[in-house]
C-alpha cells in the first residue's frame, strides 16, 4: 500500500522509535516568536542546556509588539516584560533575531515561508498553534507548548505520536469574492471545531490546486481551529515557483535537488487515509462568525442561529453564553448589525495579495463614520512591497490606520484591544471570549468582507 504525503514527511524524520510507538522526530527548523522564545530560553537557562543547532533557529518578535508607527519596543507593559528576554536569549544562545526595524521582521508564520526558511519536506516547530500554516509548502509543521520548544531547542528533536490522516478534497466553482477564509470557516462550521482532533489534514482537489500560495497559507493556518494540529498541501509548480527565488532557498544544484524532492513528497495513488471529506464549494457565499468560536459561522447573508434541536443542557448553556457575550439573540440578521472596528492583518490574512484586494475595494472611498479601521501588514517585506505599490496611501486616504508588522489586534498581547461591547470584523483566526479585549465582540471574516465592512459600517 502507498503512503500519504504526511506519512512520507513523518518517515523522513524519524530518528528512532520508542517501544510504545512514539517517535523521535528530527526538527529541521525551529521558529521563535517573542512569547515562546522568552519562555523557552528561561527553561534553557534554568536547566543549563544550550541550543543544539542554533543555525536552524530563527526568532522574530510579533505577539507583544505595538503596531503603532514609531514603536520602540517599550510601548506596552507586555512588550517591556517580554522583548528584552527574547533579545537576551537570542544573544546568549546564538539565535538569529529579526528585531524591530529589521527588514525581515514580521509575524513568524509569514516570514518563515517569505524568507525561504520554510521549504517542502521539512519539519518545522514553533511554540504557537498556528504553526500549521507552514504545512502549505508541503512541510510537517507542528505547534507545541513552551516545554516542547525547549526540548526541541536543546535536542533538535521531539517525541511525537503519529496522528491519523484525513484528506479534505475541495472542488466546485469558487464564486467571485469567496476567499480561502470563507472556505475554511465554512468547513469548520460544517465539520465542527473538534472534528480534526488526532488528525493530520491534507488539503487537495482542484480548488486547492488553483490557489495561490498566500491563499494556501490561509487554508492551512485555520486547520487548528478544526482541532487538527497539522495541515499539509502537496508541493506543486505553484509551490516551486513561490520558494525558488526566496532569499534563503537553496541555489543552483541544491535547488534542483530540492525541486526533485518535491515530486517525491506527494501522496501515492494507492494510499489510504483514516478519514476523507469532500467539499463542493459551488454556491458558497462569504462567511462570518456570529459567536465565540470559529465554528459558529454563518453566511454574511444569514442570521444568528437558534440553539440546535437535540442540544443537551451544556450545549444550550454555551449558545446562551455566546448570545449574551455578543449582545444579540437568535434570528438577528448579520447584515443588520452595526460594527465599530475593522482589523485586516494577522498570520491568517496579512499577506500582500490580500492587501492588494482590500485596497481595490476601498480606493477612493472612506471608512464609515463611527468605525475605526486598522490594517497591519504581516511582515516588513509585505509592508515595503505594499508601500512600493502605493497601497498605504490608498488605505490612509480612505481613513484606515496603517500599522507596523506584528500580531496587533489578533492576540491581545500588546496593549492593542477592541473596547468592551464593540463589534470588530477581523481577518484573524480566533473569536474566543476576551481574545481581542475584555467583552470585545469579534467577527472573523475574509479581507474582502472586512474591507467592505469598513466602508459601509455594516456586514455585507
Amino acid at each position, binding site marked *: 500500500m502507498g503512503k500519504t504525503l504526511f506519512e512520507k514527511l513523518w518517515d523522513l524524520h524519524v530518528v528512532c522509535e*520508542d517501544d510504545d*510507538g512514539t517517535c523521535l522526530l528530527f526538527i*529541521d527548523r525551529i521558529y521563535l516568536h517573542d512569547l515562546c522564545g522568552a519562555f523557552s530560553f528561561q527553561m534553557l537557562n534554568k536547566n543549563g542546556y544550550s541550543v543544539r543547532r542554533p543555525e536552524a533557529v530563527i526568532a522574530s518578535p510579533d505577539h507583544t509588539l505595538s503596531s503603532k508607527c514609531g514603536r520602540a519596543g517599550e510601548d506596552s507593559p507586555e512588550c517591556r516584560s517580554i522583548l528584552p528576554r527574547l533579545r537576551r536569549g537570542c544573544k546568549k544562545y546564538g539565535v538569529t533575531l529579526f528585531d524591530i526595524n529589521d527588514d525581515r521582521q514580521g509575524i513568524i508564520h509569514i516570514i518563515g515561508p517569505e524568507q525561504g526558511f520554510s521549504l517542502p519536506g521539512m519539519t518545522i516547530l514553533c511554540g504557537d498553534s498556528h504553526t500549521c500554516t507552514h504545512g502549505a509548502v508541503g512541510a510537517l509543521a507542528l505547534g507545541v*507548548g513552551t516545554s516542547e520548544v525547549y526540548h526541541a531547542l536543546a535536542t533538535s528533536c521531539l517525541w511525537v505520536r503519529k496522528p491519523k490522516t484525513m484528506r479534505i478534497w475541495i472542488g466546485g466553482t469558487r464564486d467571485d469574492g469567496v476567499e480561502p477564509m470563507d472556505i475554511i470557516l465554512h468547513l469548520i462550521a460544517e465539520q465542527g471545531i*473538534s472534528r480534526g482532533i488526532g488528525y493530520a489534514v491534507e488539503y487537495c482537489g482542484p480548488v486547492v490546486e488553483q490557489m495561490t500560495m498566500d491563499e494556501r497559507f490561509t487554508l492551512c493556518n485555520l486547520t487548528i481551529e478544526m482541532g487538527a494540529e497539522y495541515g499539509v498541501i502537496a508541493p506543486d509548480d505553484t509551490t516551486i515557483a513561490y520558494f525558488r527565488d526566496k532569499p534563503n532557498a537553496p541555489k543552483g544544484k541544491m535547488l534542483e535537488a530540492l525541486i526533485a524532492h518535491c515530486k517525491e513528497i506527494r501522496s501515492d495513488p494507492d494510499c489510504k487515509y483514516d478519514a476523507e471529506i469532500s467539499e463542493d464549494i459551488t454556491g458558497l457565499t462569504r462567511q462570518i462568525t456570529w459567536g465565540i*468560536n470559529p465554528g459558529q459561522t454563518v453566511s454574511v447573508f444569514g442570521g444568528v442561529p437558534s440553539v440546535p434541536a437535540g442540544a443537551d443542557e451544556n450545549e444550550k448553556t454555551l449558545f446562551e453564553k455566546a448570545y449574551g457575550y455578543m449582545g444579540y439573540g437568535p434570528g438577528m440578521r448579520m447584515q443588520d448589525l452595526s460594527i465599530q472596528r475593522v482589523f485586516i492583518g494577522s498570520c491568517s490574512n496579512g499577506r500582500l495579495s490580500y492587501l492588494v484586494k482590500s485596497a481595490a475595494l476601498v480606493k477612493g472611498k472612506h471608512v464609515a463614520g463611527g468605525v475605526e479601521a486598522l490594517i497591519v501588514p504581516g511582515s516588513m517585506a509585505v509592508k515595503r512591497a505594499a508601500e512600493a505599490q502605493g497601497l498605504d496611501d490608498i488605505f490612509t486616504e480612505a481613513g484606515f490606520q496603517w500599522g507596523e508588522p506584528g500580531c496587533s489586534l489578533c492576540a491581545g498581547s500588546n496593549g492593542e484591544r477592541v473596547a468592551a461591547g464593540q463589534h470588530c470584523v477581523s481577518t484573524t483566526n480566533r473569536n474566543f471570549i476576551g481574545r481581542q479585549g475584555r467583552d470585545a465582540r469579534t467577527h472573523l471574516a475574509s479581507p474582502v468582507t472586512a474591507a467592505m465592512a469598513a466602508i459601509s459600517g455594516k456586514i455585507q
Partner: protein
Amino acid sequence: MRKFETFRGVAVAWLLPNIDTDTISPMKRLILNPDELDVYSFEPYRFVGGDGDSGLLDPEFPLNQQTYRNAKILIAGENFGCGSSRETAPEAIAKCGFRCIISSSFGGIFTKNCYQQGLLPLVFPKEMVLSFAEQSKDKGIFEVNLIKQCVVSPDGITHFFEIEESRRDMLLNGFDPVQRTLNGSAASFEQFLKRDRTARPWLYTHEL
C-alpha cells in the same frame, strides 16, 4: 516536574464544551501576572462580568464553590483546551490543585502540554464522563491510580485507561525528558544526521 502519585480525592464537574485556552489562561494575565495563573484562570467564568480586576468571584462557577475547594480532579466538557498552544493553561489548572482532568476529548496541543505540567488528561466516553460528573456532586471520592492505569469512581467501579508507556513514566518519575533524549538517542541522532546530509543536502548547505 512534580512526580505523579496515586491519589484519592473529590472531583468538580464543569461540562461546557469547547473551552479554549484563552479562557483557561487569558493572555494579559499570563504575561503580566505570571505568579497568579491560578487566580485568573477561567477569568471569563470565574469572575462576575468576566472581570478579574473586580475581584468579585461568581458563585455560580463550580470551581469557586466551597464544596469543591480541594478537588483534585476536573471533569470537563468535550474539546476541552482547544485553541492556543499556551502551556500556562495546564500550568494554571495544576496550580489550582488539580492532578487529573477527565473529558470525552481534549485539544491536541493541550493534551501534550498537560503531561509537561504533571497533569494527567484522561479520555473516557461521554456517558462515562456524565456519570462521573453525577457522582462528583456528593463529594464522592475518586481514586486515580497511574500505576494500575485505572480510575475507581465513588460507586466502587474500576475503569481502566490506556496511556503510552513513555508518558506514564514521565509523569511517575517527574523527569525532564531532555536528558533522556540526549543520552538515550545519541547514536541514532548521529546516524540520522549522517544519512540525512546525503539524502537532503540542501538543508545543510544553506543553514542560517
